[in-house]
């Protein structure tokens, strides 16, 4: 197995960040946490981080997931990073909007960790 891949988790709910960190670390990933869109962008643009994949919540205060996505897609350094929306917004129009703004995949809460992990593996190649 090669180098450890790094996943950025963006969610305003601490319980969700914490359990994802726990589970993803068990799967052998490096994990970076962000509790808001602003912090997520700081981590993503930080040259000392090499982020391989982002799990992004949509409903967040101040800056929502769609906006984070738009910002990430504007910058060369981050525009190719696979992004999986992880959200409780389950209506079809939300899914479509998420993919339209540039999301690679979509997982609706509540989810099975196995399913999420399979999608992560798929996008990490």
């Amino acid at each position, binding site marked *: 197995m090669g180098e450890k891949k790094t996943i950025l988790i963006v969610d*305003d*709910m*601490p*319980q*969700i960040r914490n*359990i*994802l960190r*726990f*589970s993803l670390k*068990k799967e052998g990933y490096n994990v970076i946490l962000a*509790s*808001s869109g602003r912090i997520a962008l700081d981590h993503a643009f930080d040259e000392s981080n090499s982020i391989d994949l982002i799990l992004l919540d949509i*409903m*967040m*205060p*101040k800056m929502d997931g769609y906006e984070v996505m738009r910002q990430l897609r504007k910058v060369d350094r981050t525009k190719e990073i696979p992004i999986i929306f992880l959200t*409780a*917004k*389950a*209506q079809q129009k939300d899914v479509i909007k998420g993919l339209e703004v540039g999301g690679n995949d979509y997982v*609706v*809460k*509540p*989810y*099975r*960790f196995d399913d999420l992990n399979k999608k992560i593996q798929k996008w990490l190649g």
Partner: protein
Amino acid sequence: MSTEPIKADTHFLRDTIYGLTEQIDLLTILQDLSKKIVSGFDFDQIINRFLDVVKEVVNYNACALFLYNEDLKTYRVVSSRGGPMKKFNDDVPDNKIVDWIIKEGRWTPIPNESKTPPKKFQSILPLCGMIKKLGFLFMISDQDEHCYNKTNMTILSFIADQAGIALENQNLYVQLNDSRKYINNIVESINNGIVAIDLSGEITLINKNATAILGIESGDVIGKSYREVFTDKLTKKIDSLIKKIINQGYVIETRFEHSPYKEFPITIGINASVLLDDNNNKIGIIFVFRDMLASMEIQRLLQQDEMKSEFVSNVSHELRTPLSIIKSYIEAILDQVDPEDYNTQRDFLNVVNKETDRLSGLVNDLLDISRIESGKYKISLTPVSLPEIIQSVIDNLKSETDSHNIITRIPSDLKPISADRDKMTQVFINLINNAIKFSPEGGEIEIQVIIMEKMLLCLIKDQGIGIAEECIPRIFDKFYRVDTSDTYEIPGTGLGLPIVKHIIKSHGGEITVKSELNRGSEFILSLPYGDSKQIK
């Protein structure tokens, strides 16, 4: 010079004069006949006159007028003389002969099949319209063929032409009249008021709805200027709109407070556009008046519908979030946490426990909201002691947090109030819990009751994060949560305050809030007090 040629010339001249006189007579006759037939648009009248005139020329014993029926694709008798219509209909002349005669376009005798004398003379006079095949007149007469001569033929084909044109005109007139009626019905049935004026301001058309919406009492306003017919206020409005309409071609949904009857002002929407003729010349203006009440009602329903689907979407989101957390932690305990690692298991189960509480709180709040919205949220009033309720709530909450300093200032002579004990308890749980949640540890929370005339004021004041001014109007909205990253860390359904507000209102009270960001919030309840009727 010989006399012979002169004689011949005289003969010729006399014959010519006779001929001319005859022709003049003929022309006079034809003109009279034509006048008789063509005047009038009544179908039966045209036909009767036609049959009369033909009778004068050919003294028929019986005749039947066949007209082409577009639907049946055949000729049918529409009128007959000297015999029942049915007989003629059953005894239609041979189609091939008819078609040939109509193609030829002239009066033609047809073979008589009856073998028994007296021999009858049968003939067909085709009716030719301008555009399509119209029909023919079938005639039977006692006279023999001597009436079948050139003069009569000229007269009859002229008459037939005139009758054809008259019938076609009549048909066009009926169609025109039908489409006029149709358009008129549209104008009258449309759900809006329509008024058309010409460029001088004279009303050229007005429908019933317009007279109703505008409150015009007189029905006969066609030809009058709108300035005479409309109220002064509306006239002024129309005056000001006309210039704009002429320049721009239209105005859209201009609102106007109309009060034809002083006591019932209504809001009407005015749409108008320039009326153009075939050559795009401006010939007037069409106004459409709409009673905005109806469209505002539709707007309200649409908004309600939108709010409902937003509500469902919010509920779904609110339920999914704790569910998702519960599922994730349980999955982790089952699949990933080391079975020997009791501490982590315990930590995770604690999270699950809290989220389960949150979920059941949410379900209870949702039930309350749905009862409130369906009008099934009932309160039962009994005399209750407010200080008792407040104290029990504080005692319960203190077991969860002892880091806040809760001060109560309640007058000792406070009489019981008429209230629903459980619901009033719910109000104080919500408000005091909010004060704790949104205050820093060690913060002071003050609960004060002030007795006013017939009213109690109850203040719940904290030194917490406060509410931004622009958010205050919305904090009693369902699912509204003040949008800051600080508050998102604090659990809540966004349903507590709307429920509190409803409970207070159903007790005949009011709830308001004063707040300043980072300085704290103060919720002010006012409740009826001391009214003997209140306490049963």
